[in-house]
């Protein structure tokens, strides 16, 4: 599976080890994030540093996970590449997600 997670400083860091988070991968990503949330992870950081392209389906998977958290805990994005940040800006999703340059900064951000 192209995802892995680890616990660091009280955060669950989920790494997406794929260059494209598109419609062919969005459902596995959504299911993986839902599992993390169901298993009690309430401070999620999604490491997107390997993702060079994201479409609206990939974005939808992240939004679904954020909605599932229901306002408890936090979900931050880290390492988003230019095409990905552009998508978040175009869709105003940068209003919903905290997007930090690196995982370290996402951990340190209050």
């Amino acid at each position, binding site marked *: 599976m192209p995802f892995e997670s680890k616990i660091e400083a009280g955060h669950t860091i989920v790494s997406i080890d794929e260059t*494209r988070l*598109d*419609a*062919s991968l969005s459902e596995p990503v959504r299911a993986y994030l839902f599992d993390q949330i169901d298993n009690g992870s309430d401070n999620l950081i999604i490491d997107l540093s390997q993702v060079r*392209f994201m*479409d*609206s*389906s990939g*974005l*939808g*998977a992240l*939004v*679904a996970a*954020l*909605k599932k958290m*229901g*306002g408890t805990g936090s979900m931050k994005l880290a390492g988003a590449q*230019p*095409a990905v940040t*552009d*998508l978040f800006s*175009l*869709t*105003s*999703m940068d*209003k*919903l997600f905290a997007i930090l340059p690196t995982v370290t900064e996402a951990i340190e951000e209050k």
Partner: protein
Amino acid sequence: MTDEKGQVVRLEIDSELANTTLIAMAVRGLCAMTTLSPVEVNRVELCVVEIVNNAIEHAYGNEKGHKVEVGVSLLKACLMLTISDWGKSMDQGKLGSRDISVDPDDPAAWLCSGRGLPIVQSLMDNVKYQTVGDKNSFIMSKQIRN
């Protein structure tokens, strides 16, 4: 849109989401022949992926074994892309809304899908959808600086 013929290439994939990447990479390569900026190339790629995905998911209901054709026309003043399928036609009314605004304070209204067409309409200079016989075509173009 223009009547100028320019250079044209036609690409074809089977209706499987994993194949969309093939079209995306080919279109990126063709965009490299133009004066489009890196940001614009990324956006054209995004638009092509969204419309090809729509054809696979909605025209063919995610069923493999059907043809999706992408025509790329490099014209003097614009890049024109025509994505065609032979499945269920799209409701033309879906081309009406470009609204992808979001209210951070209203989680119930956060959409998990349905952003593809508004994104395409906001990024491309012209879009139109037509059905001729059993062939549905989404035609979109982006102006190119000379």
